[in-house]
């Protein structure tokens, strides 16, 4: 290497260190604008309080505070609780979001005053969250990168965890459960699990989705035995009704990433579509035994579960809706 080149290189290194350092320093001292002023607005009477996360359609960076809407906004979280996905039951809240650093994903439990309690790190992008109706278990689905069996290092697969809500830590992972199909053990390298919904009368029991190849199986599982049983194909992101008799889910149209919302009868496993005609990618929530609520990413809508009527706008600028039971104090 000529000494002239060496000098140029040293000059470039100095320039980069100074330039990069200055840029980061200015960025570090600039005011932090990660908090939100987005305001969910009730567009129709829901007959019951609904918890949502705020969505600002103008600037997606300013998302995620938790609101409780009951005709008007009745409660909202502080800057310290911003979520990509939120759920709440029996005094136990679960919020999945990005850590303040911006590079870590975290799960945070919170109380009935919307105050954060405990935080733990997640291994991927938050996708789904649930809490059993007795507040004992939580469920988390995240997207992770880097499972090369899909032929690409950036392909995403999922991990689904069961969380002990009081201890605020994962206690089981569905990937380690035994799957049974038609009475026999069922294994596969491309197994992906997502979208747990707990039985409202027995939090040990739950339903979830298993994706493998082009199939999306509805699973029935138990936390205590680590067993999962395949019930039928074509069901993603199941959600049990409060009376435990029906499951709302998204049904994939062909092989594309478009979905229709449907409801199936738990006893017969037969399904019918609801009146929502748009493609919805969400784990649906039940407002009561007759009505579904869900988000298209920017607003929350409601539709009758029996296939009648039509979808109506319920809350503007909101996502991740959660039914709040009448006995809850928020």
């Amino acid at each position: 290497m000529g000494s002239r080149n060496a000098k140029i290189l040293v000059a470039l290194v100095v320039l980069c260190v100074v330039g990069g350092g200055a840029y980061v320093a200015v960025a570090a001292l600039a005011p932090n604008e990660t908090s939100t002023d987005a305001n969910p607005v009730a567009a129709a009477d829901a007959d019951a309080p609904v918890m949502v996360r705020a969505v600002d359609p103008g600037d997606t960076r300013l998302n995620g505070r938790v609101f409780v809407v009951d005709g008007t906004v009745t409660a909202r979280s502080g800057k310290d609780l911003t979520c990509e996905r939120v759920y709440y039951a029996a005094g136990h809240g679960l919020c999945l979001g990005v850590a303040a650093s911006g590079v870590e994903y975290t799960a945070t439990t919170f109380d009935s005053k919307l105050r954060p309690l405990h935080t733990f790190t997640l291994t991927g992008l938050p996708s789904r969250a649930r809490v059993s109706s007795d507040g004992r278990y939580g469920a988390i689905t995240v997207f992770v990168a880097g499972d090369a069996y899909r032929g690409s290092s950036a392909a995403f697969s999922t991990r689904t965890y069961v969380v002990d809500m009081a201890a605020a830590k994962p206690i089981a992972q569905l990937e380690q459960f035994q799957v049974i199909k038609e009475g026999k053990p069922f294994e596969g390298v491309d197994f992906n699990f997502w979208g747990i919904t707990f039985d409202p009368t027995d939090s040990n029991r739950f339903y979830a989705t298993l994706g493998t190849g082009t199939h999306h199986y509805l699973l029935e599982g138990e936390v205590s035995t680590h067993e999962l049983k395949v019930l039928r194909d074509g069901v993603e992101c199941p959600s049990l009704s409060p009376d435990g008799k029906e499951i709302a889910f998204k049904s994939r149209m062909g092989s594309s990433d478009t979905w229709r919302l449907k409801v199936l009868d738990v006893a017969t496993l037969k399904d019918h579509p609801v009146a929502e005609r748009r493609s919805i990618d969400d784990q649906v929530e039940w407002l009561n035994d007759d009505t579904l609520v869900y988000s298209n990413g920017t607003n929350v809508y409601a539709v009758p579960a029996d296939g009648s009527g039509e979808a109506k706008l319920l809350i503007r600028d909101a996502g991740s809706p959660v039914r709040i039971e009448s006995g809850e104090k928020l």
Partner: protein
Amino acid sequence: MYQVEASRALLKPRLWFRRPEALRVSRNVFMLGLTSMLTDVSSEMVATILPIYLVFSLGASPLALGAIDGTYRGAAAVVQVGAGFVSDRWRRHKQVAETGYGFSALGKVALVAAGSSVGGIGAIVAFDRIGKGIRTAPRDALISLSSTRDNLATSFGVHRALDSVGAFLGPLVAFGILLAAPARFDAVFFVSTLFAFLGLAVLVLTVQGKPWRAPREGTPPSFRRAAGLLRESRFVLLLLAALVLSLTSVSDALIYVGLQRNVDFDPAAFPLLYVVTAVAFMALAIPIGRLADRVGRVPVLLGGFAMLFVDYAALLSNDLGYVGLIVCLVALGAFFACSEGVLTAVAGAALPDDLQASGIGILITVVSVGNLLSSLAFGALWVTIGLQQAVVVFAAGLAIALLIAAPLLVRSQRSALNG
């Protein structure tokens, strides 16, 4: 005589960063390693935060990124062979490598300028992949041409060790910046761009384009002559050996998934598997390269693939424990250190000087096809006959592959010596 020399060497200050000779490799190899290290810091910084940036700042579906990457990976494989031949044909390895590194650097600029559209991000990932496809073969040819027959594997060891240091530092740098300036992704992109250009600058300013082993006269190699490599027994035997070995080795990602199902550890610790393997690879790449140059590259290469038996055994065991887990991750790191770089060194020794980049390009493509087929086959077996049975099939396959590859490689080396 020997003793005197040795003690004099001891008296000299061993500033390895100023005297790459202390590592027994040429300055060119060391500088190419630095280039890769800086470029990897740059790419890994972005790769670490890209998913979170896409989904939380741009509201894109995480599946979009996977689709983009899969598409361009295929393109990169085709570019690889072409870029290898072109750099031999024009005798411009350095310039072709510069073009490849330049692609990635320009991609980072585009990220700073237009990082707020999903389509823009797609174009940048494409740029990065194609750039990687362009640069790999000419860069490895430069490493080979800058080495002597005696330190070829050490050279590749040094290069791969530096490269993996970059891959290790990248996420830490990104994390550090976002810790200081929360959610300021633009600062990460900016610093990443600086690293990419520094890497390019090291290549342009310090790497010799015509290392001494490079042919200086005669007609440039024709396409026919390059294609004729596929009729030369020493190279074809090597390709066959590489193919059977890559077909029977399970990818690391699949091993991690398998281990995770067999060993009952905290799911949150999953990323640690990658870290332990990467550290083992980083630490072992140079000593194993030296060992390969001293005792023979073929035995070390075969020994590296035999390391996989440790991991296959781990996948079959029901009660591994933490010690067993660490042993099997270190074995995986040793497998990486013994396989990819050493294989390229074997190829470098078998190939004529004027067709280094073409031959290495072909080899890399063959290995990646083998790896892809192996992943598909392992996945299919796992689904149909179960994980443990699939591992047994692959272990038997690897044993047979080693028995086939050993004589192939020995014969390839012998004809290389005679030819």
